[in-house]
């Protein structure tokens, strides 16, 4: 484990949380602020984590993926579209439509990844350019279809966006119920318990993102699949000489990466808000990429980095909520344009290598030529 890096990440998160608690405590009890921020952090980090995992799989296998943004956007659109079609056109019930929506999102992420794989592995196109193609294509494709399918001549929905089947439900973990007896009659204890419980009550994609982080970490460093994946990303020729099919391994990992990006896309339109807007991912794919590098190409590291980005977003939101109690000497915290720079400047700082050198897989971005 890279303790220096994780220590730095922990420090940033503590500073971000501490700032808000310090300012907000005149209005809210700290426990409420912290739990609220934690909940926001985890939710904001969810698509970033999944996007970063997508990058980890691709790049550990030696394929640079800057098309995560495009894959997420495409998946968000088609997942939502699929759910709406199932619900409104094919008349499925809401639950099934939502589930199928997730499926369509993952599928479309996979198809975009397939395009990336064909370009970068089969045709050996420069991988960064391949990713750029994906990003531009995703914007055009989703924008065009979103407009044409719902507003174009002959649209089945006749010009208005139909009702969506809703979003994935929150999974309630009954901490409050279990621990209520401990509180006894204390009302404040119960209140805190409810606040803490809220952090754990997350939706399915948010929960699976965390599970997938640990699962991926295990797979990558402790299984045959992981060993081979890392081998083709470090030294594909060496892998080839021991009978590992480099092209196949790279293809499969890019496709897995696409599925992760697809799940991240599903988060936007099927877990968070059931509507699609052009450019809705708003650059979160690029932030994912930064998180992946920040986390030194490991799943747990990428997750920790995503949490930093989540926490800085939570800081931003809370600074506005507590806008009127910000002390004058901290007034710059009111300028959300300036506070909003935190994640970007952090990323650039990390890339300088001052906090431990980030080392990409040796063959990352290099097409394999026999």
């Amino acid at each position, binding site marked *: 484990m890279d303790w220096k890096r994780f220590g730095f990440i922990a420090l940033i998160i503590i500073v971000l949380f501490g700032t808000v608690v310090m300012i907000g405590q005149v209005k809210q009890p700290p426990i409420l602020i912290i739990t609220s921020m934690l909940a926001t952090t985890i939710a904001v980090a969810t698509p970033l984590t999944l996007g970063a995992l997508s990058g980890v799989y691709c*790049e550990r296998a030696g394929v640079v993926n800057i098309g995560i943004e495009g894959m997420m956007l495409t998946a968000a659109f088609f997942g939502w579209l699929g759910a709406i079609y199932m619900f409104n056109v094919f008349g499925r019930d809401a639950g099934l439509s939502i589930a199928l929506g997730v499926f369509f999102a993952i599928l479309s992420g996979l198809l975009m990844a397939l395009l990336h794989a064909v*370009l970068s592995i089969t045709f050996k*196109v420069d991988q960064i*350019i391949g990713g750029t193609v994906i990003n531009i294509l995703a914007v055009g494709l989703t924008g065009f279809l979103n407009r044409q399918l719902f507003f174009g001549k002959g649209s089945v929905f006749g010009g208005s966006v139909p009702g969506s089947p809703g979003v994935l439900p929150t999974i309630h973990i009954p901490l409050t119920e279990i621990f209520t007896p401990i509180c006894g009659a204390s009302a404040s204890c119960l209140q805190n318990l409810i606040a803490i419980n809220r952090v754990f009550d997350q939706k399915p994609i948010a929960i699976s993102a965390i599970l997938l982080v640990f699962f991926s970490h295990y797979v990558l460093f402790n299984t045959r699949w992981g060993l081979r994946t890392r081998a083709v990303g470090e030294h594909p020729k060496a892998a080839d000489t021991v009978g590992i099919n480099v092209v196949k391994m790279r293809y499969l990992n890019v496709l897995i990466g696409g599925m992760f990006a697809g799940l991240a896309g599903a988060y936007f339109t099927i877990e968070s808000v059931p509507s699609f807007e052009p450019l809705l991912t708003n650059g979160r794919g690029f932030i994912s990429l930064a998180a992946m590098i920040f986390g030194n190409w490991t799943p747990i590291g990428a997750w920790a980095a995503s949490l930093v980005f989540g926490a800085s977003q939570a800081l931003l939101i809370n600074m506005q909520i507590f806008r009127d109690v910000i002390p004058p000497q901290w007034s710059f915290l009111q*300028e959300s*344009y300036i506070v909003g*720079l935190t994640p970007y400047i952090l990323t650039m700082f990390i*890339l300088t290598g001052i906090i431990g050198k980030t080392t990409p897989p040796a063959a990352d*971005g290099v097409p394999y030529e026999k």
Partner: protein
Amino acid sequence: MQSEKQSNSLTRQVIQSISDASLVPFLAILTAVVVGGVIIAFVGGDPLLAYRGLIQGSFGSTKALSETAVWATPYIFAGLAVALAFKGGLFNIGAEGQLAVGAVASSLIGYALPEWLGYDLPAIIHLPLAIIFGILMGGLWAGIVGWLKAYTGGHEVINTIMMNYIALNTTSFLLNGVMKDRSPTNVIARTPLIADSARIPPLFEGLRVHWGFILALLVAFLIWWLLNKTTLGFQIRTVGLNPDAAKYAGINVKRIIILTMVLSGMLAGMAGTIEVTGLNYRHELGFSIGYGYDAIAIALLGKSHPLGVVLSAFLFAAMRNGATRMQFLTQMPVDLISMLQAFILLFVAADAIVRYIYRIKSKGERVVLTRGWGG
């Protein structure tokens, strides 16, 4: 006999490589147009009418031609910015941000300088000042990334993306704050109009195309000359093709990386400046959204060659400009243009696909445009 045969096959090789270079972009465009047409038809539109609208809207009248040139002007600068960086082995995704800060700087000089000085400047001083400040700001913005690349190894792709966000946030901050047009009728984030003395005059009365367009063509020529005829260009290309050999050859690689980024940023800043001084006469937030990404496609389609960039900038400008007419005739959404451009880029980048479709053999060597994170 032997040597004659050799030279013969050599000529044939040269001809082959030339026609290769031109054929693939051409066929890529053609293929994209066909694919786009199929999609239009698929969603119930009339592809021929749509394309006719596109062409009418971009070349159909003097006014349309003028508007195409107006669109092409920033595209040429931004495309050259990306192309120059490619030549130096750098991928500048940050033209978007460099353009924005360039526009901010030149609009500030444009409207505020006479105020600060307390008297009006003659155009011969004011206009160049406004342009130069915009260029310098763009160069500085990219230079930061170049410096980080040279001295810390921080990869320019991520850093330019981050700098884009920082640029957009910072310009938002400025345009909503100190630089906002305070006139009571204004409600949006934009600067006051720049002084007349900081404006580039139009080329023809009644048309919007301005001298900035001619400047863009001149700069394209200048960049070509710089890259191919000067020692600086030789250094940039050497660092781009083989940084190890460049170091061995006594080239200060770090300096050239920074310089390439600065030059690239200056060109991108120029794209922003030219829009402020030649067209909008002010900086309005968000006016340039997407130019930086279009510039990547333009540079790739033009194979990073300045003349290629000019031509592909024209093509993209024509498509963007013609979109209005196309919409009017067919109600096809503007996004169709983005999609067409993505297909063109796809087929240019993956020339193997085009070669496969049209059964063209490849003999050329692969040109490495970017390197992985490690490089």
